[in-house]
């Protein structure tokens, strides 16, 4: 039976996580490679198939927006893991903690004293023009002064082998259920490797999450719920998974009612008070009284109850202002301003179209840049210069000229690659990013693991699940 042969594996032009530039395996992948090379192609294929089947059986499916209703897909899990050694991880951990601490101070400041604006660290128009800035929150301080309890930043590694933060995702970062379930599946796929490799466990995430949520309420034994838009939402699997793992009630907006600024859920035995809501509904939809009037996903009066301090919302509303891609460009300065420290994890160089000189540069160099809409996510509203047509570039230039505030641009980064099983059952490098998860209660905890998203199409750098991306389990080693 033919054994797997990786001698022809091509690392040219990119940073590869398994092999160095001389095609020598990196130490963190040594044991894994030995296991892989003992395997026949058929065995590998069988393991991969078993994985697909477990995902279906677990119901790890998502609905794709704009797709036919009722079409469910699984997020393809490639069984070759991303392995990170302890030293690299410690660096990431410190960098993320620094960043989240600073961003939290920043959010508190812009809704209260606005010192950062008065000191002209960031132009105030930039903040007030952000669609995610909520004027209603001015003067408000959430419990324990924590705004971004749950973060799932997107990191990438460039050709230089350096990690960069690409996005911070302080609103409703998703994907953590995949981190947890991928691990359960891979433990079944490679049990002998887990015995030998000393991989740090991730499965206490939901316990820490529950503790974090409970710590925000002053009530003893608070009632914690997860608020979902419902079964048609693409991340519904995750909402139900987290609720179930935490032992929290999974509610929809219509299950809640606000009376005298107190939130209740409607049960078979009458009304029951709710203390903490882990909401997976965007700010704009949580309360039709204050925000989107057409929203059927929210609960009228919820925001009032929140401002009165009668219920805790997690994450706090208004954090989306940091996810604005134009605000992102100022984060190095924000960190310096609040913490007096240099940024540990660098940003990707960002050109702000709202600034005249940057805008000129972007328009002249659009063919080599990645242009992004400042309030979009999920890989939408984006132009990848080197892979676009002349016509697409011109369309984007017109849009930028019309509303410069809505666009930023970044140089194209050659994302690092990890060996991945292709549809033809060969192994080739595919580009990946990294989404670790942080929980901020009494302190900031980074879970030693992550969702590694992989662009399955050859050459593609778009890793979003809605655009043909898959995932990998991420092993953080204890050494």
């Amino acid at each position, binding site marked *: 039976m033919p054994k797997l042969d990786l001698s022809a594996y091509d690392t040219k032009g990119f940073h590869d996580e398994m092999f160095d530039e001389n095609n020598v395996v990196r130490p963190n992948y040594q044991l894994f490679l030995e296991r892989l090379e003992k395997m026949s192609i058929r065995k590998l294929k069988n393991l991969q198939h078993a994985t697909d089947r477990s995902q*279906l*059986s*677990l119901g790890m499916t998502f609905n794709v927006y704009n797709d036919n209703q009722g079409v469910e897909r699984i997020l393809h899990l490639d069984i070759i893991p991303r392995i990170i050694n302890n030293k690299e991880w410690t660096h990431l951990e410190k960098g993320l903690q620094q960043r989240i601490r600073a961003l939290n101070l920043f959010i508190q400041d812009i809704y209260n004293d606005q010192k950062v604006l008065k000191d002209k660290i960031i132009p105030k128009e930039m903040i007030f023009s952000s669609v995610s800035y909520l004027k209603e929150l001015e003067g408000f301080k959430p419990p324990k002064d924590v705004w971004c309890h749950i973060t799932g930043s997107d990191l990438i590694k460039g050709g230089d082998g350096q990690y960069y933060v690409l996005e911070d995702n302080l609103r409703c970062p998703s994907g953590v259920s995949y981190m947890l379930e991928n691990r359960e599946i891979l433990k079944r796929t490679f049990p002998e490797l887990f015995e030998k490799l000393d991989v740090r466990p991730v499965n206490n995430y939901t316990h820490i999450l529950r503790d974090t949520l409970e710590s925000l309420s002053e009530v003893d034994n608070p009632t914690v719920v997860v608020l979902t838009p419902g079964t048609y939402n693409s991340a519904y699997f995750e909402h139900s998974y987290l*609720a179930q793992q935490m032992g929290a009630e999974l509610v*929809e907006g219509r299950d809640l009612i606000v009376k005298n600024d107190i939130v209740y859920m*409607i*049960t*078979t035995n009458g009304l029951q008070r709710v203390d903490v809501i882990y909401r997976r509904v965007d700010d704009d939809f949580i309360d039709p009284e204050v925000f989107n009037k057409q929203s059927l996903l929210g609960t009228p009066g919820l925001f009032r109850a929140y401002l009165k301090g009668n219920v805790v919302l997690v994450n706090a509303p208004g954090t989306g202002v940091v996810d604005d891609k134009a605000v992102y460009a100022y984060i190095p300065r924000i960190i310096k301003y609040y913490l007096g420290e240099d940024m540990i994890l660098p940003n990707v160089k960002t050109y702000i179209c709202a600034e005249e000189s940057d805008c000129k540069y972007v328009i002249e160099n659009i063919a080599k840049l990645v242009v992004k809409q400042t309030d979009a996510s999920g890989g939408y509203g984006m132009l990848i210069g080197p892979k676009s047509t002349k016509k697409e570039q011109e369309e984007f230039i017109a849009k930028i000229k019309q509303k410069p505030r809505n666009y930023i641009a970044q140089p194209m980064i050659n994302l690092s690659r990890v060996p991945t099983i292709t549809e033809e059952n060969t192994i080739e490098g595919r580009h990946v990013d990294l989404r670790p998860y942080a929980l901020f209660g009494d302190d900031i905890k980074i879970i030693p693991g992550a969702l590694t998203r992989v662009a399955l199409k050859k050459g593609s750098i778009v890793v979003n699940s809605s655009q043909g991306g898959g995932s990998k389990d991420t092993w953080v080693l204890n050494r």
Partner: protein
Amino acid sequence: MLGRVANTIYWMNRYLERAENYARFMDVNFNLSLELSPNEEQQWKPLVVITGDWPLYDSLHGKVEKTKVIHFMAFEAENPNSIYNCIVNARENARAIRTEITKEVWEQINALYYLVKETSKQKRFNNGDVRHFFNDIKNGCQLLYGMYDATISRNEGWDFAKLGQFLERADKTSRVLDVKYHLLLGSAKQVGSSLDLIQWTALLKSVSAYDMYRKKYGKLSSSCIAEFLILDTDFPRSILSCLISAEKSIVRLSGSSFGYSNTAQKQLGALKAQLEYTDIHDIIEKGMHEYLDDIQGKLNAISSSIYDAFFSIEPHIS
């Protein structure tokens, strides 16, 4: 428990029970038809009539053909009660209340879902395939009941589940009996003939009652069969048995066993008492069809009262 969640659990269990019953009805009928002279209308129309979906079938297909009836009851997308739709709905409900059920139960419902999805894509069925499918549905549902029984706490959710399951089962037993009893008595000239016995046996098998009936009565007789399926207190699929079980659940949910605390409990208790204090001769004298029709009407009324008492929002906001 959230009212919406309770409603979803209730319907999830009704759908599953319905799918399982349909699979059994068709399997038994299929088996029976192999031994009868080929008359598709005579053999397959009653099955559609039992489900109460004859008008829909008639408007979609008109002519009765075995393959069309099977397709209609098993896979027809436009038939809200087809096995396919029941399983898809049950699974959609299970997704919505994933936090109320265990991993075992969820994975089994999911397995049933992939079974109907895959099978419905098949273009052609030979006889063997179809019976395999019926069997897989029956076994799959029963496996699920077992998992439910072995892994779910006896909490509020459990009682809503059982309420849904037993009311659905009572309804289906009453419908099978209603339709078949008439057909069989109608062909009076065949009474006592071997053909007749095959048909009465099939009726019992449709509700998995054959073995337990034989054990209790030995000989086949129409009134004994009716008595067994309506009034038996030990056989878990008889109408009265189902009502006894459903009442236990509604008593726990309503919190009082003396008298009643809502309309649903009142109606359910009254229907159970009605069956407890009657005997089969009264029923036959009054007319079997009228009697069973009345039961079905009352079961529907109970279901809507359950909705008002537990699931709808209005009573809670005042």
